[in-house]
């Protein structure tokens, strides 16, 4: 029995097969419409989530399966103090597969340890969010027709952003990847990530201003810079504009440089960019459904 707890749980070869399946599901959705007939997904969301929960549940519905669960801890037995281990033991008796989001880091690891059904980590605090990483990889593969030989800019809050950490770890397994980290000094990529890249001889550069480097990028992955991450208001006001993507900055980028964002977007991408054909963040959401469909089918061993 397989689970998805971190993006590295699947080898590069296994990911290739997963993405091939996702592409096939996108092109021939009707072929897979009854793949999960009679199967049930338990979605165990201990904290609020819009995209991830709806995306996973949509994926199961698209495959003909059914969903059940809770969308906040208050309406679950966690409110009575039940452990994750006991909850998943119980849910294993009802459902065929479970997706769990929990505010505590490592909660999905614990769930997998005690589960009798496949577990999908739908986000465990600031730790891992592997289905987002799979979404990002599938999107990049579709936009650029490859996952190697790319210069990828990651911009914004690189210190606390779990999606960028997971994405760097996952992309580091492909050939000839060059990273460009663009962030305020306070929010630069943590040492353990840069040490990981140093150890593997993977190229990266660090910048403070997006416009200095946007012209070199094949892809730009934007994240939100939150006011509360700054030590003082003065620095926030001074730096925030460096990390807002607008039409002017886009004019400096290559014609085939796509923009991704894990969403929700607040103001770090101006709405004027949405009509630019290189703005790919809403297509990214659609890819997220296909990759989760492929994941559910793979973990249930139906393909």
């Amino acid at each position, binding site marked *: 029995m397989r689970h998805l707890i971190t993006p590295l749980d699947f080898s590069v070869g296994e990911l290739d097969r997963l993405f091939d399946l996702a592409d096939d599901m996108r092109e021939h959705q009707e072929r897979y419409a009854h793949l999960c007939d009679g199967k049930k997904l338990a979605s165990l969301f201990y904290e609020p989530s819009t995209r991830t929960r709806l995306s996973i549940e949509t994926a199961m519905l698209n495959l003909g399966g059914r969903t059940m669960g809770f969308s906040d801890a208050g309406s679950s037995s966690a409110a009575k103090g039940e*452990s*994750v*281990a006991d909850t998943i033991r119980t849910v294993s008796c009802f459902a065929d597969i479970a997706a769990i989001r*929990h*505010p*505590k*880091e*490592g*909660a999905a*690891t*614990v769930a997998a340890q005690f589960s009798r059904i496949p577990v999908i980590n739908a986000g*465990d*605090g*600031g*730790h891992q969010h592997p289905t987002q990483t799979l979404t990002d990889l599938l999107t990049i593969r579709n936009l650029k027709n490859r996952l190697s030989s790319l210069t990828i800019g990651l911009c914004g809050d690189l210190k606390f952003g779990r999606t960028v950490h997971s994405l760097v770890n996952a992309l580091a397994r492909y050939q000839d990847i060059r990273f460009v980290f663009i962030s305020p000094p306070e929010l630069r990529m*943590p*040492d*353990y990530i840069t*040490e990981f890249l140093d150890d593997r001889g993977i190229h990266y550069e660090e910048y403070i201003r997006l416009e200095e480097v946007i012209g070199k990028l094949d892809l730009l992955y934007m994240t939100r810079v939150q006011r509360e991450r700054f030590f003082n208001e003065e620095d926030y006001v001074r730096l925030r504009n460096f990390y807002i993507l607008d039409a002017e900055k886009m004019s400096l980028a290559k014609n085939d440089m796509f923009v991704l964002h894990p969403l929700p977007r607040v103001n770090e991408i101006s709405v004027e960019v949405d009509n630019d054909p290189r703005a790919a963040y809403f297509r990214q959401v659609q890819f997220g459904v296909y990759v989760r469909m492929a994941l559910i089918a793979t973990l249930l061993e139906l393909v």
Partner: protein
Amino acid sequence: MLNVGKIEEGFVLDHIKAGKSLELYHHLGLDKLDCTVAIIKNARSNAMGKKDILKVECNINTLNLDVLAFVDPDITINVIKNGEIIEKKSLPLPKEVKGIIRCTNPRCISTIEQELPQIFYLADDHRAIYRCRYCDAAYNPNGITG
């Protein structure tokens, strides 16, 4: 100078940081074994000033010493058979450390989930970095980092 008799078979763990021998006694599970143990605290040492020594009389196959390299890599491990030192062991860092240290990351599931074993894995051999199996927070003796 205090004299402790020779042992026929077992281990002499030398150059233990002064005051740490009781901690090692528990980490090695000696409290659960029916064997003769001499704990020598604050012995004089030219190199260290003061040191602790543990002498354990036991079958040399009964004791798992892997944890020693994690607790203190400078400990000298003398293996004794027939009253003689037959080997001076140096141990690699253990791949996994179970039940020795606790994760102090307040956001880690292991801080709230009952009966979850505390497990750390060796994430970086060169830098001797251990990470929590659940949340991946790095352990250092002064608290969790990165």
